[in-house]
């Protein structure tokens, strides 16, 4: 396709603008992390002297075991992603590839669950987690995170399963396999990119449930929070 010179220029200019706006705050935070003492109050982007003091104290201060917070985060993320995908892909197969009564209603219900404002389950979740004995433990975070991640996984995968060519649904005559094989086929071959995508989305915006987090774990904190509040 051939573009006019003006169009090409605008595309590159817009792309540059998008990059700068997206990345600047992050770059500024990195730059700030190298500043110490009164240099912190100087708003210039490049620090006049670079110091690693902040990073060292992050891992050496006894009252703030940052390494353990990172491990907490990894553990919770891995558990939530694994559980969401495992449960989500089987549900999405049923919702996307099999037509049965009440499918629409079920999808709406799943959506309704994800629209739970986290505070709407706060009181009950508080009680549940305390009853299970995981109050104030990183493990306790897996439960509330599932409220958000599972419906999202199901919706994205269902939309995707629906878009797959219909032929995949009817197993070719040479297989005796019923839905399970074609489900495996669909999920392993076609959903590959989507799995990664979901993985990415789930493991990164861990901050979404800060609300629940801040109540259910007063001392066991995962990585990002502790460093910012202490």
């Amino acid at each position: 396709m051939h573009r006019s010179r003006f169009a090409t220029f605008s595309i590159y200019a817009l792309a540059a603008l998008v990059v700068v706006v997206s990345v600047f705050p992050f770059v500024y935070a990195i730059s700030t992390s190298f500043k110490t003492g009164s240099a912190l109050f100087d708003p210039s982007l490049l620090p006049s002297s670079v110091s690693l003091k902040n990073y060292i104290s992050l891992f050496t201060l006894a009252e703030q075991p940052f390494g353990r917070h990172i491990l907490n985060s990894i553990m919770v993320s891995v558990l939530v992603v694994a559980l969401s995908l495992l449960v989500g892909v089987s549900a999405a197969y049923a919702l996307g590839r099999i037509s049965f009564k009440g499918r629409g209603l079920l999808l709406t219900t799943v959506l309704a669950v994800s629209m739970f404002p986290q505070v709407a389950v706060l009181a009950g979740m508080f009680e549940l987690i305390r009853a299970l004995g995981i109050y104030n433990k990183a493990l306790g975070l897996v439960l509330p995170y599932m409220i958000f991640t599972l419906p999202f996984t199901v919706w994205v995968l269902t939309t995707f399963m629906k878009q797959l060519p219909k032929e995949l649904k009817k197993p070719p005559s040479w297989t005796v396999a019923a839905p399970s094989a074609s489900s495996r086929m669909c999920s392993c071959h076609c959903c590959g990119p989507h799995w990664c995508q979901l993985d990415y989305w789930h493991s990164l915006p861990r901050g979404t449930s800060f609300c629940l987090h801040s109540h259910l774990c007063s001392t066991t904190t995962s990585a990002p929070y502790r460093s910012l509040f202490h």
Partner: protein
Amino acid sequence: MNPKTKTAWLYLSPMLLVLIVVALWPLGRTIWFSLTDANINDLDAAKFVGLENYFGEYGLFANPNYTDGFWESDWGISIINTLKFSVVSVTIETLLGLGVALLLNQEFKGRAWVRAAVLVPWAIPTIVSAKMWGWMLHDQFGVINQWLYDLGLVAQKVAWTADPDFALWTVVAVDVWKTTPFMALLILAALQVLPKDCYEAARVDGVHPLRLFWRVTLPLIKPALMVAVIFRLLDALRIFDLIYVLTSNSNSTISMSGFVRREMVDNGYMGYGSAASTALFLIIGLCTVAYIRIGRMKLGED
């Protein structure tokens, strides 16, 4: 039950079980608490009080102590704040997200890098980005104020997160920065699976690009756009963390979730807080139904 339906429910059962444990049961308990006078320090001592938390003397609605009217009460203000925030931020994010997605769908050198850069705001946890922006928007030492001051756009530095005139719109701006990538990515994913032949045909016929966008692209990506907007809207209506970190418990920006947290955790009124959260749940439900009706979206259909 025919075997197909049986298989479907078998596949669905793990998800249903998980959802019951993490969502339905806690929700039910919360609604129960909203009918009691529970205190967070001693849940067992809770007594049933009926609808007292909703419509009683110190209830959420019809409270005789609201001398300036409902919309001037903390609860009323938090409802207005949340609605304002949601409508404005989701609208801007959808438009910007669409723009960014269309841009990233063009072919140009370094596109992969731009796509990666766009992900940055979404990849940073809200708490971290809120703190980052909080520092950049600092009224004394913030870089934003410094720039505006140097350019002569403001006569004196502005307290972006503390001034009631600006605080809510500051939160909206940070949310737009943070969430536009989410919209852009979802829309981009939809753009990339569009059939190429429509565009070939349109090019042969010499259709104007704008017309092509309105008549072909937009209708084709509409389902994906609807899903994206729904998720964003639901997310925006329950906003808590961004506001709490940027402006803490300030009355000018408090959201419904913030109100619930304040009553339930800071003040310990589990019953009253649960009533507010149940009301919030209903309000969000109504908003969603209204949105789906307006968008004439048919859920669960192809």
